[in-house]
């Protein structure tokens, strides 16, 4: 028996390709069959025909689902989701940068570790729990309204909610509330890549820039930011893609207009129009692919 195991293992060590093949087969089978297979099944169904009278799907192939993506209402959904994803990405970058910058440049060793854990924990903390917490915080009986009330700022809040686009009846049903929750949920995904990129910037470059007479703002603009930009883009891949596909937060917080995610969810669920749902999922796939291509050009993959 030991002789046999020795023969087998030595053969595997010498026949490197055979070993490689054996190692790769299970994960490749799993991903090839289960995952890619499912993706193709989905893609294929996006060409099926949905009969809105009988509410049933037939196997006749059609481009109708893709064409209807360009109907005014559907285009509206796509643009609404896209602009939210862009807004959330920008907000995350603005909030994340000072945090990442402070922790890499000024944090002591212990402080750095503290910041790292303090970012990791909310990042991995349960998505639904965080969303739940926000539904309670933003509600009219919630802590924010209470705070505004005690600071005598209720009228300021009211007039903020009167504004078009971001406003709404209450914080919890406003576009602003949804934006806050999205930004909160995906923020940690932006901090860590920026921090990693900052970590790689040699300090003497900044010193050299200062020695040569640049003001801090100039050093930031001309030296630091270009070097860290790939990290920002790397983080934005997450914030952008995650916002684009989310369908829980738009259901729970904010006004009633559909998002790509909620559209897909209702189409396949209550309406049973799997073909249109499938065609809709192609939208984020294409948007994310375009984004990834741009990100690759910005060098974001080296910063991941």
């Amino acid at each position: 028996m030991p002789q046999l195991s020795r023969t087998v293992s030595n053969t595997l060590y010498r026949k490197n390709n055979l070993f490689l093949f054996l190692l790769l087969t299970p994960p490749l089978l799993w991903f090839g069959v289960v995952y890619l297979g499912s993706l193709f099944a989905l893609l294929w169904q996006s060409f099926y025909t949905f009969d809105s009278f009988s509410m049933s799907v037939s196997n006749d192939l059609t481009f109708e689902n893709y064409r209807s993506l360009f109907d005014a209402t559907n285009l509206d959904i796509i643009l609404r989701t896209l602009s939210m994803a862009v807004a959330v990405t920008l907000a995350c970058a603005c909030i994340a940068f000072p945090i990442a910058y402070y922790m890499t440049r000024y944090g002591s060793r212990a402080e750095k570790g503290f910041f790292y854990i303090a970012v990791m924990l909310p990042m991995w903390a349960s998505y639904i729990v965080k969303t739940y917490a926000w539904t309670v915080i933003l509600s009219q009986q919630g802590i924010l309204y209470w705070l505004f009330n005690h600071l005598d700022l209720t009228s300021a809040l009211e007039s903020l909610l009167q504004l078009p686009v971001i406003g709404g009846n209450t914080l919890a049903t406003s576009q602003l509330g949804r934006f806050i929750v999205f930004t909160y949920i995906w923020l940690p995904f932006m901090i860590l890549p920026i921090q990693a990129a900052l970590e790689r910037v040699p300090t003497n470059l900044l010193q050299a820039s200062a020695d040569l007479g640049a003001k801090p703002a100039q050093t930031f603009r001309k030296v630091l930011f270009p070097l860290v930009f790939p990290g920002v883009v790397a983080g934005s891949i997450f914030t952008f893609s995650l916002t684009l596909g989310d369908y829980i937060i738009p259901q729970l917080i904010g006004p009633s207009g559909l998002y790509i995610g909620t559209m897909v969810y209702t189409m396949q669920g209550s309406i049973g129009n799997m073909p249109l749902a499938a065609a809709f999922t192609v939208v984020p796939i294409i948007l994310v692919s375009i984004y990834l291509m741009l990100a690759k050009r910005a060098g974001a993959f080296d910063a991941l």
Partner: protein
Amino acid sequence: MHSDKSPIWLKTLAYGGLVFLHFPIIFILINAFVANDGNRTHFTLRWFSAVFARDDVMSAIALSLKVATVATFLALIMGTMAAAALYRRNFLGKEAITTMLILPIALPGIITGIALLSAMNILEIDPGFWTIVVSHATFCVVIIYNNVVARFRRMPHSLVEASMDLGADGFMTFRHIILPQLATALLAGALLAFALSFDELIVTIFTAGHEVTLPIWLLNQLARPRDAAITNVVAMMVMLITAIPIIGAYYLTRGTEAIAGSGK
């Protein structure tokens, strides 16, 4: 980078950001211990016993623990195999394979979910425990892969060669040389995968059918505000069950270049 004195506004922004990240979590923690009798608000453990008496909560927790355990186990095997195959060799299609491993977390979760659902519809597979496990294992593989491949890259191959030169066979080398070096990376990856699976919601909704995992239970609770006290306690428990493996994974990979959780 070296440290000198930080401008006060920067420090304020940085710590302000941390406060923003943590106050909803602290809010949940506090809420779990608060009871309101009439107008008086006080500390209580009453909701905890109420939670343990609820069968629906207990079975949701049990299901989520079972799913996370099995999915992590499957992902450990496949992630390690993929890492072992891909870390040293360069061959045609390697890029495609790594891209494919990342795809389940790079694409929005709703796509993975609905794709698996449509495949299940076509093959007429009834959703249940195993469909949840399969969907979770699919996106957990890359977590294990990331952790293990980083460790493999830092491990000098000369150790393996030395072991073989000294007469150990492949299995002995694996058992006594490779495995001990991988151990903490495997454990850290497993902890992260477990945490990820335990509170996954987006994909699970599509693959769970009528099964209720803990995150799905929480989502259903949102429509029932009267149960808020129970929901608060369960929310806190979910938070703790995931926080412990995360901190564990951090300490296991600290000082190595593998950033635990890079690319959730």
